[in-house]
């Protein structure tokens, strides 16, 4: 009897994690139950360790798991675990202002806990899910709440993220690698091979250059007119930055802020929250020219070496000083491998570069692409791959 209630609770815990976005299969849960039988339940930390090693398969799930574990298994005495879930119900069901769960970093965990008690997801959440799906910048995604995503938004984005592979432009390396096709003889291997064969030359080993992806530097406008796109785009960059160490991310509105370190946080919710905390002028005004000037002065030499590709995410609506903007955009363009401008305004059919800010930037970019929904990110990937090694020519508006 005790056993069955306990197994039920482990199952509920696993479902909770699944609701919060972790892919946990039934086989993992069964494995966890088996492992618990072997390991025993004497210590809470052992119990946590066993569950973590059986249910998780990636390090970035750890933060979320720990938080969920502490919330769920509230009873210190593991032998009476049967009562745990009930207590959780009381804790999260109450509207107690002291409930420390409310300010949690993870809204998707909170929503998963809410779902644990059978409450239907509210119509608002469902609506929001639709909004992400079409993400065409209609009305729904305008919420000011940047600090964490809802469970639905996150799941949907995550699903698409896993499919999204950004093809960065590749350039040949100067370092040579062993190959069968290269043009340079690999004397070291030839001599070693000949020594092994008693002095006979049988095979001519060769070398050829490899290729490497160019580093990516993203400059993202987070001013009022841009903030919803920036948030979505940051999420993708978080996924990219975890794979490519050389990715650098800057946010700008009226000031330029480097958020590369903050984006390294493994959990996407926590990473985005850390970014928002760093930026004093989220959803504020915009001074593109001034921020590009700062970037060129302080950062360009540090991060634009090694043939970096720069993604400039902005609507280009600069009102103040377009002469400065043009000058700095040109300098930026000259210091990087490729300058790609991602502009959400391009989603409107018949967009014409009439604003003076747009006209100031446009002559200096290698590509001008829309960024308003997830499909356009696919296009971006394709465009970056195509930019590759071709010689740079005058601006091409795609």
């Amino acid at each position, binding site marked *: 009897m005790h056993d069955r209630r306990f197994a039920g609770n482990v199952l509920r815990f696993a479902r909770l994690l699944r609701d919060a976005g972790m892919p946990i299969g039934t086989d993992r849960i069964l494995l966890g139950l088996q492992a618990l039988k072997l390991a025993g339940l004497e210590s809470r930390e052992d119990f946590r360790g066993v569950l973590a090693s059986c249910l998780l398969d990636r390090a970035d799930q750890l933060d979320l798991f720990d938080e969920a574990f502490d919330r769920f298994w509230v009873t210190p005495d593991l032998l009476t675990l049967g009562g745990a879930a009930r207590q959780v119900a009381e804790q999260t069901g109450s509207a107690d202002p002291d409930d420390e769960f409310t300010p949690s970093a993870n809204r998707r965990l909170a929503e998963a806990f809410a779902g644990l008690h059978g409450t239907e997801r509210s119509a608002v959440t469902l609506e929001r899910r639709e909004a992400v799906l079409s993400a065409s910048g209609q009305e729904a995604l305008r919420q000011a709440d940047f600090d964490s995503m809802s469970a639905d938004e996150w799941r949907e984005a995550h699903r698409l993220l896993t499919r999204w592979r950004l093809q960065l432009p590749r350039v040949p390396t*100067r*370092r040579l690698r062993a190959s069968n096709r290269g043009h340079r003889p690999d004397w*070291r291997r*030839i*001599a070693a091979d000949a*020594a092994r064969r*008693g002095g006979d030359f049988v095979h001519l080993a060769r070398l050829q250059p490899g290729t490497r992806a160019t580093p990516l530097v993203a400059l993202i406008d987070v001013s009022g007119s841009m903030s919803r796109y920036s948030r979505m785009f940051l999420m993708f960059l978080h996924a990219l930055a975890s794979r490519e160490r050389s990715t650098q991310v800057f946010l700008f509105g009226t000031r330029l802020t480097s958020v590369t370190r903050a984006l390294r946080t493994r959990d996407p919710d926590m990473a985005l929250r850390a970014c928002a905390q760093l930026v004093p002028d989220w959803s504020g005004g915009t001074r593109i020219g001034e921020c590009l000037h700062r970037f060129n002065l302080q950062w360009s030499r*540090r991060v634009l*070496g090694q043939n970096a590709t720069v993604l400039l995410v902005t609507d280009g609506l600069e009102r103040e000083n377009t002469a400065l903007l043009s000058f700095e955009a040109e300098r930026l363009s000259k210091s990087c491998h490729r300058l790609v401008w991602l502009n959400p305004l391009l989603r409107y059919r018949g967009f014409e570069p009439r604003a003076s800010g747009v006209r100031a930037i446009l002559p200096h970019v290698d590509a001008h692409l829309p960024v308003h929904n997830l499909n356009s990110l696919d296009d971006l990937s394709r465009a970056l791959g195509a930019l590759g090694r071709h010689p740079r020519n005058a601006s091409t508006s795609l």
Partner: protein
Amino acid sequence: MVRNLPTSIDETSELLGKADYLPDRRLATAVFLALSLGRPLLLEGEPGTGKTEVAKALASALGRRLLRLQCYEGLDLASAAYEWNYAGQLLEIRLAEASGVAQREQLARSLFDERFLIRRPLLQSIEPDPAGPPVLLIDELDRADEPFEAYLLELLSDFQITIPELGTRRALAPPIVILTSNRTREIHDAVKRRCIYHWVGFPDAARELQIVRRRVPGIEAALAARIVAFVHQLRELELFKQPGVAESIEWSRALAALDAVSLDPAMVDDTLGVVLKYQDDLERVRGAQVERILAGIDASTSEQAADA
């Protein structure tokens, strides 16, 4: 002339001073710590602030050999650590065939022998030297690629190099290692962790004046002071590339070569290319800005004269 390592920060300052390098207190501290703890010293800073000079000064002051490895993209083991003399090996194979002693194992052993090992700077740095362990300068590490950084880890932490055919070579006495970076990209944390770190900034005006007068002995004191004051004013402007100490020294030499006695606007305009290397910067400064800076310097010197 072999000298012992300094035993205090002051001694370190003095030692570098003998080699015409005038470090500030923090740099002297970093050098002293690197020497006494036997750790590599990582120097980062703007170009022209004297990072490379530290290694040169140390080597000459201590009477050690200076081994310099200039980094570049694609730098590999063959040019950094060691390489086999392939031509010699191929010849050896032919000889063995001709004399009919083509015993396989023996041939392999004689091919990968010390005789055919070409030593590059990294390997040289861990070999015994009668003058004491050499100074190894790994210059502009940020230009090398990440695989090379990874290779450096073994050398920097254990001062050893593994040659698959011969085994691991270990330094009896670790070399003095100085790494420099212009920060065109971040050096990996694993490398940084093994080093003593120091950011080399621009010196204050008084120290820079000392440096210029030490490096350009023939220059007049008043002219040198004006040059240094001018360069300091330039650094206040938001230029794309701020002039370093190397530029101050170079400019002083240039003006000395032109037999200039004073810094007048025309002379500055003509020689500004020695100090500023970007067209945008030159355009901003030339003409009116130069006159404004010179007037400012004149005003402050006359003030000082009045005070005195």
